[in-house]
């Protein structure tokens, strides 16, 4: 119904010669823009590389630990001089195992057992944690008392640092934690092959320890695992249900607009605020225990919910309306349409959003500090109600330690955390591929 424009309506003279104006400039602008883009990406990659390089170069040594492998005589005179172990099993728990180890090392180094000063220095080579190592060996098999076994004893953290070349030995002896004599012994042991680096399983299984050589992220891993489980179990169903209701069922009015705005705002609330909320609600009001991964999980659930809701709503919106129309046109009810067709198609988006939310929660530290998860926990938590820590909090705590050996532990724990995040992201990509359908 538009009026036809007759050719006569256009002035014949107005054929402006503008074709060659600006074309070069336009191409130049495009080339410039591409260059900016490439520069931006290179910049990003450079920093990513720097980050990874600094973490990995500092942290990879944490996965090896120096040990001293020597024959250890489980002398009955030291462990159980009065032969009481039959009547009092506790005797074996409290025996003087450090002396067993010290004497064994002194024997190898040819130090007289009368030279107390030298013995103290010998003792400085071994970690205090061998107390539990030897104790566990004896309790598991009391028959080894009186025999000589070859045992890999954990070296002291300072020995470990020197052996890995992290300590400058040109510094004056009085400014070092390891004396020249001890360094001499180390060289001796190293030459004989007794002092060697082994794979450090302890960093994965041990709990908190003030001795860096015996400290590990075991408790933190379990705490993080519990929290991830709680976040997944709570946030995914709640988030998906909320999104489906908001996206598909809720009437569009002021009230739902308000809810929508607030959800979007919640996603931008600083995480430490969620920590305060958790402290006030879960610990002070509901009386849940401090430092528990249950509380941590609940707080992280609150924090993750907006992310999941936003991702899920976007995924639901992205399902083509033609699919909805097709199902409705066949006489499917709204519920059937959503659960049979829309939700399966939105699944990749929902899962990706969830995993990104989980990864975000896994790396979150600030709210956990407020609910007391920054704690020295040496024992494994058996339930989510027991005190525990989380991976990022463990990193935070180690970063505050003074010993040189904690520096590599900090980076090592960061590597572990990054590996978990990598695994989760790969999982997200695989799920996406698995569920992705074309229409």
């Amino acid at each position: 119904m538009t009026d036809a424009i007759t050719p006569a309506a256009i002035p014949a003279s107005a054929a402006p010669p503008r074709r060659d104006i600006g074309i070069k400039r336009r191409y130049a602008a495009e080339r410039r823009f591409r260059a900016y883009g490439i520069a931006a990406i290179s910049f990003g990659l450079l920093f990513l590389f720097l980050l990874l390089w600094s973490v990995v170069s500092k942290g990879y040594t944490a996965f090896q630990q120096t040990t001293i492998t020597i024959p250890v005589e489980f002398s009955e005179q030291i462990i159980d001089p009065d032969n009481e172990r039959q009547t009092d099993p506790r005797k074996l728990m409290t025996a003087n195992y450090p002396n067993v180890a010290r004497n064994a090392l002194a024997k190898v180094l040819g130090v007289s057992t009368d030279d107390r000063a030298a013995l103290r220095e010998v003792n400085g080579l071994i970690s205090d944690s061998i107390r539990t190592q030897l104790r566990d060996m004896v309790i598991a098999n009391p028959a080894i008392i009186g025999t000589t076994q070859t045992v890999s004893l954990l070296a002291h953290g300072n020995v470990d640092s020197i052996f890995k070349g992290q300590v400058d030995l040109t510094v004056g002896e009085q400014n070092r934690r390891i004396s020249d004599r001890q360094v001499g012994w180390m060289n001796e042991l190293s030459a004989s092959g007794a002092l060697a680096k082994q794979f450090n399983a302890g960093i994965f299984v041990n709990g908190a320890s003030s001795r860096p050589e015996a400290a590990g992220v075991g408790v933190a891993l379990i705490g993080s695992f519990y929290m991830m489980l709680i976040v997944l179990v709570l946030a995914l169903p709640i988030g998906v249900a909320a999104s489906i209701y908001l996206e598909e069922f809720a009437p569009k009015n002021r009230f739902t607009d308000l809810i929508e705005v607030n959800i979007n705002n919640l996603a931008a609330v600083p995480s430490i605020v969620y920590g305060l909320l958790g402290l006030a609600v879960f610990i002070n009001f509901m009386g849940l225990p401090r430092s528990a991964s249950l509380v941590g999980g609940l707080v992280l659930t609150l924090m993750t919910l907006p992310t999941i809701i936003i991702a899920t709503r976007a995924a639901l919106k992205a399902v083509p309306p033609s699919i909805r129309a097709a199902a409705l046109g066949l006489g499917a009810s709204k519920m059937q349409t959503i659960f049979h067709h829309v939700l399966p198609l939105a699944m990749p988006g929902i899962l990706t959003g969830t995993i990104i939310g989980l990864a975000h929660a896994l790396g979150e530290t600030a709210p956990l500090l407020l609910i007391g998860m920054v704690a020295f926990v040496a024992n494994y938590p058996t339930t989510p109600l027991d005190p525990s820590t989380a991976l990022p909090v463990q990193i935070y705590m180690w970063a505050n330690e003074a010993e040189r050996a904690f520096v590599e532990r900090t980076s090592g724990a960061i590597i572990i955390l990054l590996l978990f995040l990598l695994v989760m992201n790969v999982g997200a990509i695989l799920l996406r591929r698995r569920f992705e359908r074309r229409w």
Partner: protein
Amino acid sequence: MNMMSEAAVEKALEQKMSDVSHKMIGKDVSVYYGEKRALFDVNLNVRENTVTALIGPSGCGKSTFLRCLNRMNDTIENCRVTGKITLDTDDIYDKEIDVVELRARVGMVFQKPNPFPKSIYENIAYGPRIHGLARNKADMDQVVEASLQRAGLWSEVKDRLHESGTGLSGGQQQRLCIARAVAVSPEVILMDEPCSALDPIATAKVEELIHELRANYTIVIVTHSMQQAARVSQRTAMFHLGQLVEENDTDKMFTNPDDQRTQDYIMGRFG
């Protein structure tokens, strides 16, 4: 389809049409999208076992009217329908009427082929399954085969029933959608420009199919193509600016319409 059977069908239908029975009756149907009124008191009856074509320029309300017939407009926010539409004797906008059941009786085929991103088999089986039309697997197999036969797709897809429905060509996809609509045994099939996304060969196939389906179903089709309306329909309704301009036998409509606007539109003077 050969000429003989076509003539036979034509004859049988002629007989049926002589005692005109209206499958759906629209009385004073008006539709509002919020404040905007899209349809003005349309009175249009749909005859049984007839193809009724709705024509008119874009935005004239023909699709809106079509979507009233199975209440697809309900899914649009702010859309309000007044007036009365009956299917047989049931007022479809009555509170007692279950929309789900209505849409099982009045099926729909859309402009763009929209198969579910599932297997061909699942595409057809979905409707019968949610309506409980098949008791077991063998029943379902039969329904699927019969529906695909009806849509003239069986011979093309019988060896790949479990491949994705979205892997078919555009024309095949549209026939799959028709088969899917047929599978729930509707009484009326609504088609909203079913051929606008298809090439001429696929269009010819779909038109032929519409022709055959007429024996068992009442069909209402919205089309932008005058030729298509002339080819497939027996009755034609012309809409303009939300009003029903004229409704007549297709032959009369395209040769000697009562209304000047119809003549102008068919001649291509506007639209």
